[in-house]
């Protein structure tokens, strides 16, 4: 090629970008996109604020509306403190799954506005737009968890393990949130409008999070649902976080049906999340490569 851009004066010639290995380029591109999404978060604080209000509402509603009536097995009935401690891991876990809707809506919006076309016409790493988005969502999820933990402490949630174990519990929750944001990315790439991505990202979360051990112990459910609930990846994370926070209840068996994930919740939760990331990242990146607005 001889006609390398005379347009606009002393522009950098082609290939100014130092040749980079695939991985280095992927990481760098993903960080550029993540930075873009974080700037957006700062400029549209409403989104972050609503994301904070919702779980706080859940904590307050569950604690004060249901808390008095839901008997935690092994605890004296009406023991609100026992339910509070039982509940928090569930609320935390439900909160991180909302990252799905955020990622989905954001990516659908980018498609709609033609930004995905622009990104796809650039010599950037193929997965970077999605990785950048999910990383930015991870930051928002972490922020939400911090605020939510403070609220939980204020209304009487207590951990009975050392701080490292508690941090590991939050790590497990964030890993699940990150995994779910990849599901959201795939939804966002598959629907036509940001509105569809928001509702499509949310509806399936309700059965997923309610048919689980998050809000009520599974012993009260029909046998069939007990199996579903105990194999639900979401339950594994709730049980894992509960264990790491020291919020399990003495004398209550970990599992009703003997499901393996309930016997080893921390490991099971990590495995589930890694598996979800592996599957949905692959699907989402493949979808991105052929995406059309």
């Amino acid at each position, binding site marked *: 090629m001889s006609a390398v*851009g*005379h347009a*606009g004066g002393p522009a*950098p010639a082609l290939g100014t*970008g130092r040749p980079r290995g695939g991985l280095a380029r992927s990481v760098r591109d993903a960080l550029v996109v993540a*930075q873009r999404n974080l700037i957006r978060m700062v400029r549209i604080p409403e989104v972050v604020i609503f994301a904070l209000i919702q779980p706080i509402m859940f904590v307050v509603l569950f604690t004060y509306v249901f808390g008095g009536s839901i008997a935690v097995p092994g605890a004296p009935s009406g023991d609100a403190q026992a339910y509070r401690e039982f509940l928090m891991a569930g609320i935390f876990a439900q909160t991180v799954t909302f990252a799905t809707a955020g990622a989905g809506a954001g990516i659908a919006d980018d498609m709609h506005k033609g930004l995905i076309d*622009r990104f796809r016409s650039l010599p950037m790493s193929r997965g970077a737009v999605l990785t950048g988005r999910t990383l930015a969502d991870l930051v928002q999820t972490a922020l939400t968890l911090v605020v939510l933990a403070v609220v939980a402490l204020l209304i009487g949630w207590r951990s009975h393990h050392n701080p490292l174990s508690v941090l590991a519990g939050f790590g497990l929750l964030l890993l699940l949130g990150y995994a779910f944001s990849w599901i959201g990315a795939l939804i966002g790439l598959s629907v036509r409008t940001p509105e569809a991505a928001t509702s499509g990202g949310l509806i399936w979360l309700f059965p997923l999070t309610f048919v689980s051990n998050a809000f009520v112990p599974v012993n009260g459910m029909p046998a069939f649902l007990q199996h579903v609930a105990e194999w639900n990846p979401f339950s594994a994370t709730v049980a894992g976080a509960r264990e790491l926070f020291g919020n399990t209840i003495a004398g209550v068996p970990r599992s009703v049906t003997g499901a393996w994930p309930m016997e080893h919740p921390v490991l099971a939760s990590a495995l589930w999340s890694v598996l979800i990331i592996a599957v949905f990242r692959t699907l989402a990146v493949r979808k991105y490569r052929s995406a059309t607005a």
Partner: protein
Amino acid sequence: MPGAIYAEGLVKTFGEVRALDGVDLDVPEGTVLGLLGPNGAGKTTTVRVLTTLLRPDRGSAHVAGIDVLAQPDAVRRAIGLSGQFAAVDEYLTGRENLVMVGRLYQMGGRDAKRRAAELLERFGLADAADRPAKTYSGGMRRRLDLAAALVVSPPVMFMDEPTTGLDPRNRQALWDVIQELVAGGTTLLLTTQYLEEADRLAHDICVVDHGRVIARGTSDQLKARTGGERIEVVVHDPGQLAVAGQVLDAVAKGEGTADPHTRRLTVPVTGGARLLAEVIRELDGRGVEIDDIGLRRPTLDDVFIALTGHAAETGAEPGAAEGDGAGDGGGGGPRTGRRNGPGQGTGDGTGRADGGRSGATTTKEGVR
């Protein structure tokens, strides 16, 4: 030697729709090709294939000498794309948008910042550089989008309907920018629905319809095929149609048409503005009261009628003509937005190409 943009036999189907049906293109380095056609003709699909966004079912393409299908990433380094929508992040400032794009073109942080500042200056966005793009006007967003496509000064540029939806002033400003760019040696493929735009910017024009190139040549060659100019008169009193018809028949180079409903007469002519003046004097001399008169040059509609026998109807390309209504892109057929009503200004003769053309297909039978 194949040109900077070279495509052979591109075919792409979407379900039942054959969006591209064997498109061949050859754009020599440093020239501008205008891809002219109605919505749904396959213009955007062609651009998407050439810019690596879409894989064709069949055919091959080279851009800047690089095989689009075999080395898409290398092609992406050599091209800039400016689409139908201003694809900028509206919550980022103009500067942040350009720096981001620069970094994704694999520039270093400092280079990306320097280049962003240069482009903002050049596109008249320096004052607004640090405002979020959502505060920009439509024209400013288009300029920012174009600047983003020029971050690495790519040797080959693609612009998909760059001025659709812009008002005339902003369209003019964007044309100036594009001309400057081309003067610098960039090879450009431009899609448009406006013959005037292709006329102004393109060295060569390909007319596309239903996924095929149905004609190619310079603007003059196409116009010659289309049947040249004609004079259109709208008389005030229907009773004077006959008299006016005699006047026009005297200068006509072929059969004209008359429409009593709109009191409109149209005849093909050669001789341009001088002839128009003559006709006006003659009509005036015979006491014919005129509501509107103009010398019409061929429009995209005319080119289409001449080439295909059907008008360039607005097709179903989703969202393609989603303008802001300020100009003439607002979803109608090509250029219908500029329609002048009868009795509105008669003085701009040649410039007013398509005054009052409701029912264009029926009044133009004699033109071919």
